[in-house]
């Protein structure tokens, strides 16, 4: 699923890979509506955020594998005090931490789509929504979440 309308107003910093390119595959994947996380081809351990080495067996350059953008809410917060100019008229909003049980329980931070005043339940099942920002001077995509 994807969306051309953004949950938060335009003008927040655009995510870009580090100077060494470590996360470039991840961000490119989101633009193509593929969720990629690292899984070591040698020992099978899952890893996110990415690193140049597997934290368990120390093999370099862990493989990137595509996983389903499905998960459950691990934690959440409702933000009331804006700290960025573009958010001044947009509070409150909801951020969630989503756990992906089928991908080694790695977690992703995103926004929970829908009513910002909704009651949020830890454990609730959610699915990913790719949110594209083609109008940005450096186009990028985010992964948002909605209740299943």
């Amino acid at each position, binding site marked *: 699923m994807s969306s051309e309308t953004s949950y938060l107003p335009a003008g927040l910093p*655009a995510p870009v890979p580090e100077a060494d390119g470590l996360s470039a595959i991840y961000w490119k994947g989101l633009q193509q509506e593929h969720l990629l996380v690292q899984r070591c081809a040698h020992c099978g351990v899952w890893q996110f*955020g990415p690193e140049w080495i597997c934290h368990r067996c120390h093999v370099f350059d862990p493989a990137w594998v595509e996983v389903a953008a499905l998960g459950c809410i691990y*934690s959440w917060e409702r933000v*009331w005090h804006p700290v*960025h100019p573009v958010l001044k008229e947009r509070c409150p909003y909801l951020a969630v931490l989503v756990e992906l049980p089928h991908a080694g329980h790695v977690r992703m931070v995103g926004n929970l789509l829908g009513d910002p005043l909704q009651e949020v339940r830890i454990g609730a099942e959610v699915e990913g929504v790719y949110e594209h920002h083609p109008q940005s001077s450096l186009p990028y995509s985010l992964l948002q979440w909605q209740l299943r």
Partner: protein
Amino acid sequence: MISRTLRGKVAIVGIGETAYYKHGQSPDPEFKLALKAILAACEDAGIDPHSIDGFASYSEDRSDATRLAVALGLPRLRSATMQWGGGGGGCCAAVANGAAAVATGQADCVVVFRSLAQGQHGRFGQAAGAGAAAATVAGERSYLVPYGVISPPQRFAMRVQRYMHDNGVSQDALRAIAMASYHHAQNNPRAVMYGKPLDAAKYDASRWIVEPFHLFDCCMENDGAAAVVLMDAERAQACAQEPVYLLGAAAGSGPRFGTHGHNSPEYGSANFGTVAPDLYRMAEVGPKDVGVVQAYENFTGGVLMALAEHGFFKPEEANDFLVTANLIAQGGRLPLNTSGGNLAECYMHGFELVLEAVRQVRGTSTNQVERNDVALVVGGPMVSPVSNLLLGSRAAL
């Protein structure tokens, strides 16, 4: 085998601080604040500042050791250490690093300090979030900032939310921590919130910053500087004050704590799971021996988790333990943040907590506790690395 410990080897012989200001209100530049605090600590110790031969600090303090040594005309600079990591995670580790230099003969008189003028250099949390004003964001913050998870309270609220969910902790427990700090600040003329009491109704009515943090769950932002002077236990005897001894110190992180994108295996945690046992082992005491605690309040929820991880209560007992009556110096079971701490004395990045622990052991706090032989300081919950410190009287050795 040589015993590898700081226990009883090093003492804090002097403490000093500037006046504490709301952020942006210091009449002095940051470096001058540092100098004033250092001179005040030397005066308290009754020593000539020229005897300083080392500096230790944390959180990338801008008042660097070489400039201090030059400004003070020191005959020589020996130890100069900076603890890695941001926030107040290093406020105790900086003391330990300075003490390690003294204990191993690398220096004789080390000043540990923190100076912060947010008016001059930008507000700390905002400066740390400078990416918010930028067009792009990379690395750890790239997984958060585009989703509006930008400032420190926004970065930590979900850890606390999960912990409260797992252990059935109520908002009242966070409120009790805030109220204890404000209660103590009313007896402390140094405190920025002196004369500004907080009651339950005012807390409840205060606006949300980010759930589960109300305004009063969040630290202040201030200008000031604070410093302590360290010497070995033998030299300390000749100073003006009764020495306050290091019983133990520890720093660090649990397994993969701080993994990007909120992927720390222990997520609902203040990060003392491995650090607290290390501290007690070196100090040769346990939680029951601790008479008074200064615990860094970036946010009250961090204090909640840090106290549980230091063994003062089980997580599921938090609601019963964390009531204001238990946390105040006047008859409480575990007096907490007896100067007012980061919430109500001054956000001196936690270094004011070290000074208050020294005052408690000396018996000179404005909220003096009776059981003052062993005082705990906890620095920087939820960040990586964190650190902690146990101070004690001669009787505690």
